[in-house]
């Protein structure tokens, strides 16, 4: 599932209609979850806003983190094959 500060309208337009993704997207404009996960990128340069820094967490069915990637460089984010490998290792 994808989480960003974008509004539901923008997410619908960019991620569903333009990009064609079919998984769940959630909007966090007040940085409620983003803050709880300590992923706030305050006054980010390009947007001038408080947004989420890129990060991925794979949770098992109990909600426990089994794999994560909190990148050090936002040009490097989790690759699909890394996530699939981690998912296959789940019980």
């Amino acid at each position, binding site marked *: *599932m*994808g*989480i*960003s*500060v*974008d509004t*539901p309208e*923008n*997410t*619908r337009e960019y*991620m*569903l209609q333009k990009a064609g993704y079919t998984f*769940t*997207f*959630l*909007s*966090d404009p007040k940085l*409620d*979850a983003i803050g*709880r*996960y*300590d*992923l*706030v*990128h*305050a006054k*980010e*340069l390009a*947007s001038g*806003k408080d*947004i*989420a*820094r*890129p*990060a*991925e*967490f*794979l*949770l*098992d*069915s*109990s*909600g*426990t*983190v*089994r794999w*994560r990637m*909190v*990148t*050090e*460089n*936002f*040009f*490097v*984010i*989790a*690759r699909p094959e890394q*996530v699939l490998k981690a*998912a296959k290792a*789940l019980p």
Partner: protein
Amino acid sequence: MKRLNWQIWAGFVLSLVAGFSYPFVFVRWPITREFPWANLILFAIAIVLLFLGLRRAFKPDKRITSKIFSSLAAAFGIMLLAALLFLIFVMGSWLPPSAGAPQVGEKAPDFTLTNVNDKPVTLAQLLAEPINNKPPKAVLLIFYRGYW
């Protein structure tokens, strides 16, 4: 007859292509985004051309204007390369520390957020809601920068 210093022109145009193809093209694929191989190869060719053009412009029979123009073109190409490397390797790592982000083995904090249909959704719900009549094996949370 004066012959066009094509090396300097080609080098100049190619350095533009090398710089701007990163944000517009090569940023799409992890292999060319994480390390700008494609752009560095383009820049290498551009710099060779700029060097050849410069050498030609600085031959004694060439006019001062061609010396000035080719120097500016070469400087611009190098600046674009420096800007791209700065963007990827310096600005790319301007991220907060996120020391409090959930670690492997920890429980992911619950949250309630709005989906694209303006309905509230909790993490607990996503962990429990059946997909194809089977309980989900896992949930992947992807925090992304968004389009604002």
